[in-house]
């Protein structure tokens, strides 16, 4: 089984190594991710959002819908943990 699992491992590794050669270098200003909306955020961000830290400015202001969804997901995860893991000790009236 161990030797059998080596085959897809090597194939997948070779595939990923080949694909990694096509990635743009780190911090390349010409890469597709850095040419769409990033220049606007970087040039106007601090004066529009009032945040020196650009990451917080984008997360809490430009993309606050994303952050709202993320918070809702975290809240739902906590609810699920409480409902599933805490089912038994809710039955006998809490932890006290």
């Amino acid at each position: 089984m161990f030797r059998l699992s080596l085959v897809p491992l090597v194939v997948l590794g070779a595939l990923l190594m080949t694909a990694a050669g096509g990635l743009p270098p780190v911090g390349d200003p010409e890469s597709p991710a850095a040419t769409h909306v990033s220049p606007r955020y970087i040039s106007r961000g601090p004066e529009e959002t009032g945040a020196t830290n650009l990451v917080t400015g984008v997360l809490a202001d430009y993309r606050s819908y994303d952050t709202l969804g993320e918070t809702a997901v975290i809240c739902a995860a906590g609810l699920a943990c409480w409902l599933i893991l805490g089912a038994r000790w809710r039955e006998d009236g809490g932890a006290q």
Partner: protein
Amino acid sequence: MIPTLDPLAVVFLTLMIICAISVLAVRDLLTSVTIFGTFSFFSATYFAILGAVDVAFTEAAVGAAITAVFFVTAIFRTDRGAD
């Protein structure tokens, strides 16, 4: 084309790979969780080298502290061996 990498980044990437392999290779789950915390710290340092300080912050807080505590608690609830 081989992308040029910071030598410091190469060091931390190598350490991350070593940690990732030993997490799977170790038989004791508690040791595995500890090495996983080390992996998180190395990846946080790697993010900091790349200039993503916020991501490094999150990785160090969540990956190294909270996840390790949750894993250790889960191991205390169950058996310690991997098999």
